[in-house]
C-alpha cells in the first residue's frame, strides 16, 4: 500500500481551506468606492465641446440671488477662503472633495438639478478637480473661467466681461515660430529687446495666468 493511496484527508482539508480563503476573498473584495463614468475618450469629447465652462458674467445672476439653481464651491484651502471668496460660495478644499460626505452631497445636488460651479485662484487650479468630477459622472459640475483672481479684478463690472474674452485660456499670445527664428529678438542689445518687449506684449490680465 503506497502512501498516496491512503485517505488524503490532510490534502483535502488544506485545499478546502485554500478554496475558502479565495471564496471569502472574492466576497469581501473591496469594491472601488468611486467609479469612472467616462472613458478617457469621452472625457476628451467633453473637453472638445468646451461644455462645463462657467463664464464670469453668468455670475451676476447668482450673486444677486435670483438664480438658486447654481451653487459655488471654492476649492482653495480654508485659509485662502477665509481671506476672501466669491459671495455665497462654500468652501470644500480640493483634498476633501472626494470624501464620503462630500460625494454624497454632490450626488444629492446632482439629483436636485443644481449646477455646481467650482473655482480656485485660476482656472488651472480648478481644472483637475473639475475634470475628475466630470469623469466620475457629475455632469452638473462647471468650472469658473478666469477663476477667483479674475473675478476679484472685475468684481464691480462682471456683466461687462461678456464681451471680453481675455479669461479664455488655451491660446497663443505670440507667434512662436517667428520669435524662435530670432528675427525679432536676436541681434538687439539687452535693453533694447527688453523695452521693445514690454510694449509688444499683449496686455492680458496677468492674474489669469498664474504669475506668468
Amino acid at each position: 500500500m503506497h502512501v498516496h493511496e491512503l485517505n488524503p484527508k490532510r490534502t483535502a482539508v488544506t485545499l478546502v481551506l485554500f478554496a475558502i480563503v479565495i471564496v471569502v476573498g472574492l466576497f469581501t473584495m473591496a469594491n472601488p468606492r468611486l467609479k469612472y463614468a467616462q472613458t478617457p475618450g469621452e472625457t476628451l469629447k467633453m473637453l472638445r465641446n468646451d461644455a462645463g465652462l462657467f463664464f464670469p458674467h453668468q455670475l451676476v445672476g447668482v450673486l444677486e440671488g435670483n438664480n438658486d439653481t447654481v451653487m459655488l464651491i471654492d476649492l482653495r484651502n480654508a485659509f485662502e477662503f477665509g481671506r476672501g471668496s466669491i459671495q455665497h460660495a462654500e468652501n470644500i478644499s480640493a483634498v476633501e472633495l472626494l470624501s464620503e460626505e462630500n460625494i454624497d452631497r454632490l450626488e444629492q445636488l446632482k439629483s436636485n438639478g443644481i449646477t455646481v460651479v467650482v473655482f480656485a485662484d485660476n482656472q488651472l487650479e480648478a481644472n483637475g478637480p473639475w475634470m475628475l468630477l466630470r469623469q466620475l459622472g457629475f455632469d452638473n459640475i462647471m468650472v469658473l473661467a478666469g477663476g477667483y483672481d479674475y473675478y476679484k479684478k472685475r468684481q464691480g463690472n462682471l456683466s461687462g466681461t461678456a464681451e471680453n474674452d481675455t479669461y479664455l485660456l488655451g491660446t497663443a499670445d505670440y507667434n512662436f515660430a517667428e520669435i524662435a527664428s530670432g528675427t525679432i529678438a536676436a541681434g538687439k542689445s539687452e535693453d533694447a529687446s527688453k523695452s521693445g518687449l514690454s510694449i509688444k506684449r499683449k496686455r492680458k490680465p496677468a492674474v489669469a495666468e498664474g504669475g506668468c
Partner: protein
Amino acid sequence: MMGPLIPQGIITGEWDFVIALLLGIAFGFILEASGFSSSRNIAGVFYGYNFVVLRVFLTAVLVAMIGLLYFDYMGWIEMDLVYVLPTYLRSMVVGSFIMGLGFVLGGFCPGTSYTAIAIGKIDALVFTGGLFLGIFLFSEAFPWISGFYYSDNLGNVTVNEVLGISNELFTFILVVMGLVAFWGTWLIEKRVRKTNKHYKFE
C-alpha cells in the same frame, strides 16, 4: 495589504534574509517530507514505478497558478511586479536538454540534493560537488559561449503573449492535463509495481 511585499517596500531590506531562511526551511521540509531526498524516488518518474515528482511538482504549479490568478483578480498582488523569467529560446532549449540528461543520470535536482545531504546521502553531496564544478566550467567557458547564451532573447514574455491564450485558459488546460496525468499515472504505477521487485515501494 497588497503584494508583493518586498518589491513595494512594505517589508524592508533587513528582513530579507530572515524571510529567505524561513521560506527555505519550509521548502526543504516539504521536499524532504514528500520523499525528494531519495534519488530513486525521484527517478521513478521516468520508469513508471514512482510518480511522486510528477504529483508534487504539478500539484504545486497548479495550486500556485490558480492562487496567483485569484490573488491578481482580488487585487492582493500586483502582477506587474512579479518577476517573469526571461526567455532566451535557444539557450533555454539546450539548457533543458542538458539538465534532462543530468537529471536521469544524477537523480537529483539542486534543491532536492540539499535536503538529501541533510539526511546523510553521499551521492547527493557528490551531485552538489558536480553542480559546483559544472557552474565553474560554464563560467570559465563563458567568453566563448556568451553569444549563444544571449541569443534569441524574447524578453520577459509570458505564455499568454507567446501562445496567445489567456492565463486563465492556460491554467485550466494545465489543470485538466494534470488531473488526467494523476489518474493515468496511478494505473501505470500499479502495473509497473507488480513486475518490479528491485525497488521497495514506499
